[in-house]
C-alpha cells in the first residue's frame, strides 16, 4: 500500500532561481496520480487498488454510471431553473461526478458526511429527497434536509469550517465505540484556510476516524489552484501525520478504491486519511459566475477529454454492458428525476412570515419572543390598515 502514500519531495535548498514561476503548477502533472480507468475507457491493473474494487462488476458499474448521468442531469435542470428565475443560484458540479459519487457510494449508512455547497451528488447518494436539494437555492430555507435522516450535515458555506465538524464527529464515533466514519468534503481553495489545517492537527492528535476528501477542481472561483498551493495538495497531509492519496478524481474506480482504503483504515483504528481527487470544474463557479473572464479555454478542452462519465461509458461499451435497454432505462430514470426535480422546485412555497423566528433557539428566549410578538402585531396591523 505504500505506493499510494504521497511522499512529498523536498524542494532543493540550493535552488536560488528567484521568483517561483507558478504558472505551470496550475495544472498538476499526472505522473503520480492513481488511475484505474483511463479517459479512453481502458482499465489498468494496480494490484494495491484493484483488490478494493473487486466487487464492482460491470453491473455495479452501470449503477454508478447511472448515478453520474442523473446528477449531471440534475445540474442541467437546476441551471435551467436558475435561468428561468425559479432558483436564485446553483453551484454545478459538472465534471466532478466521479469524485463525488465514487466516494459517497463507498460510505455506509451510519457514516456521516460534512460537505460544502457543491456536493449535491454526495447528498444524492446519501438518499436526499430531491426537493431538499432545492430549498437553499430557491431561498426558502437555510438548509434543505435533516442531517440525521441521511447521515450528512447540511452544507457549510463558510469555506473549510466543516472539516472541524467532521473531525469532532469522528472523535465522538471513537468515544462511542462504533466504527462509523466521518468524511469531510472540501475544495482546493479551502486548503488555504486555517480550519482544515487545524482539523488535520486535531484528527492526527486524537487519531480520529475521519477522511479529508479534497476535490481539487483546479479553481476557487477565479483563482487557480497554483495560487493556493505551490506543490500538490496531497503533499501537505503527511507532514501532519495524516497519510494521503492522490487519485484521478475523474476515475470513479480509483476514487472508490481510495475511499474504501481510507474507510477501512478509519474503521480499524488507523485514524485519518487525506484524499486529493484531482478533477476539474467544467461549469462556472455558480450560475452567477463568468469564467470567460479568467479561464483558459484550451485547458478546459483538455479536461473535457477526461470526462468522468465518458470513460465509464467507453469501458462499459467495450464490456458490452451498455445495451440499448440499459441506456433507455437510464434515460427514462433521468427524465423522471429531472421532471420530479422541476416540479418539486416550482411547487416550493415561501415559508410563513413569522417562521423567521422559529428554531433560532431550542428553548424560549424572552428577547426574541418579544420581537416575534411585536412583529405579529405589526403584520396584523398592516393587514388591517390595507384591508
Amino acid at each position, binding site marked *: 500500500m505504500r505506493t499510494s502514500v504521497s511522499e512529498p519531495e523536498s524542494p532543493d535548498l540550493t535552488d536560488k532561481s528567484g521568483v517561483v514561476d507558478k504558472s505551470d503548477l496550475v495544472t498538476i502533472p499526472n505522473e503520480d496520480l492513481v488511475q484505474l480507468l483511463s479517459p479512453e475507457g481502458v482499465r489498468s491493473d494496480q494490484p494495491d487498488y484493484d483488490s478494493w474494487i473487486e466487487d464492482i462488476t460491470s453491473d455495479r458499474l452501470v449503477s454508478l454510471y447511472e448515478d453520474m448521468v442523473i446528477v449531471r442531469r440534475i445540474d442541467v435542470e437546476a441551471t435551467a431553473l436558475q435561468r428561468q428565475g425559479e432558483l*436564485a*443560484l446553483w453551484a454545478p458540479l459538472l465534471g466532478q461526478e466521479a469524485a463525488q459519487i465514487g466516494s459517497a457510494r463507498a460510505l455506509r449508512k451510519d457514516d456521516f458526511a460534512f460537505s460544502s*455547497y457543491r456536493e449535491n451528488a454526495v447528498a444524492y447518494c446519501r438518499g436526499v429527497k430531491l426537493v431538499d436539494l432545492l*430549498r*437553499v*437555492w*430557491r*431561498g*426558502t*430555507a*437555510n438548509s434543505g434536509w435533516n442531517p440525521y435522516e441521511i447521515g450528512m450535515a447540511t452544507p457549510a*458555506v*463558510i*469555506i473549510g469550517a466543516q472539516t472541524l465538524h467532521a473531525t469532532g464527529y469522528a472523535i465522538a464515533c471513537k468515544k462511542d465505540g462504533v466504527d462509523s466514519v466521518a468524511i469531510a468534503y472540501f475544495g482546493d*481553495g*479551502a486548503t*488555504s*484556510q*486555517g*480550519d482544515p489545517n487545524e482539523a488535520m492537527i486535531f484528527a492526527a492528535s486524537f487519531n480520529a476516524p475521519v477522511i479529508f476528501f479534497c476535490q481539487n477542481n483546479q479553481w*476557487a*472561483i*477565479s*483563482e487557480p489552484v497554483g*495560487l*493556493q498551493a505551490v506543490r500538490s495538495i496531497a503533499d501537505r497531509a503527511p507532514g501532519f501525520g495524516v497519510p494521503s492519496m492522490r487519485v484521478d478524481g475523474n476515475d470513479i474506480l480509483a476514487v472508490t478504491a481510495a475511499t474504501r482504503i481510507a474507510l477501512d483504515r478509519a474503521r480499524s483504528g488507523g485514524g485519518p486519511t487525506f484524499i486529493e481527487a484531482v478533477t476539474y470544474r467544467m461549469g462556472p463557479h455558480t450560475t*452567477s459566475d*463568468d469564467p470567460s*473572464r*479568467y479561464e483558459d479555454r484550451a485547458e478546459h478542452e483538455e479536461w473535457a477529454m477526461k470526462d468522468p462519465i465518458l470513460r465509464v461509458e467507453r469501458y462499459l461499451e467495450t464490456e458490452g454492458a451498455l445495451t440499448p435497454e440499459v441506456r433507455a432505462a437510464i434515460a427514462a430514470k433521468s427524465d423522471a428525476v429531472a421532471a420530479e426535480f422541476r416540479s418539486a422546485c416550482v411547487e416550493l412555497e*415561501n*415559508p410563513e*412570515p*413569522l*417562521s*423567521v*423566528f422559529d428554531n*433560532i433557539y431550542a428553548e424560549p*428566549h424572552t*428577547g*426574541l419572543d418579544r*420581537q*416575534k410578538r*411585536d*412583529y405579529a*402585531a*405589526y403584520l396584523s*396591523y*398592516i393587514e*388591517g390598515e390595507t384591508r
Partner: protein
Amino acid sequence: MSELTLSKAIGAGLRRSLEENDHVLLMGEDIGALGGVFRVTDGLKNDFGPERVMDTPLAEAGIVGTAIGMAFRGYRPVVEIQFDGFIYPAFDQIVAQLAKLHARTGGKVRVPLTIRVPYGGGIGAVEHHSESPEAYFAHTAGLRVVTCSNPQDAYSMIRQAIDSDDPVIFFEPKRRYWVKGEVDLDAVPLPLGKARVALEGTDVTLVAYGPLVATALDAAAAAVDDGLSIEVIDLRSLSPIDFDTVEASVRKTGRLVITHEAAQSGGLGAEIAASITDRCFFSLEAAPARVTGFDIPYPPSRLEEHFLPDLDRILDAVDRVMGRENSLTPWGAS
C-alpha cells in the same frame, strides 16, 4: 462630473488612490482577473499589475494578517472581504492585531489599512451573504468604521479611508451597488467622521446609514402625505459617530427613529438611542424608536422582506414616536 454607479464610484476611488500613491495596493480573493464578484476592482489588475492588485490565497486571516505586515513597511493595503459573512475568520487579526497595534506600540506603528466589506441584505442571496456585522467593529476600539449610501460618498470616502492613518472598516451597501449618481472626482469631501443631513425636516429625526438611507428618504417622502416632516440623517461614520449632528437635529425635532439592518440587540441603534437620550433627555418628546433586523441569523432570502426594515416599518415607528396610532398601540384595540 460623471454619472457612476456606486460600485464604479468605489472602483474610481481605488483607481485614483492607486495612481496617486504607489504604496497603495489591493488584496483579496478574486479581485484580479475577475475584478471581484461585484466587479468593483474591474480592470485594476490589468492597469496596475499583479504586484499592486493581488489575488491572494483563500484565507481571510491570512489576507488581513499579511496586510498588517505590509503596513509595517509603509504600505497602505486595501483588503477586500468578499462578503460580510466571510470576515469572521479574520476577526482575531482585526480585533486583536489591527485595532490594537497603534495603541500597543505607543503610536510607533501606523496601520493605514482599509478593509472593504460588501454588506447587508436585499439581494436574494444564500446564507452568510447578507449580514450586517458593523456593531462588532464599532464596539472595537482602535478601528474606524464607515459606510456610504451614494456614489459621491462612495468615491470620496474610499479615498479618505485609504488616506487615513488609522485602520478603517469600509462597509459597502451591496444592494445599492447599481444605484447611479453624479460623481465629482475632485469634490472637496466632508470629513470622514461627519454625518450628513440628507433631508431637512422638523418633526422627527430619522437616522440611517448605508443601504437604508435610500429607504429612509423614501419613508420621508411618503410621510409628507401624512403631513409629517422627517429629517433624515445619513450617519456615514459608525466609529466615531457624529452625535453632534444627530443631537442638533433631535433638539429641533424632539423625536428620534433609528434604522439599520443588523440585529436590534446590541446594534448601533442602541448606542445612538442611549447617547442621544443622554445628550438631550429633556428635548425628547418620546422614547427613541429602533427599526432594525430581528435577533435572528439572516433568514432565507424568500423571507428577507420580513427581516429588512422597510418604508412601512419605519413609518410605523415614526407614528409611534409621534404618538399616533401604530402597530403597538392600535387605536381600534383600545
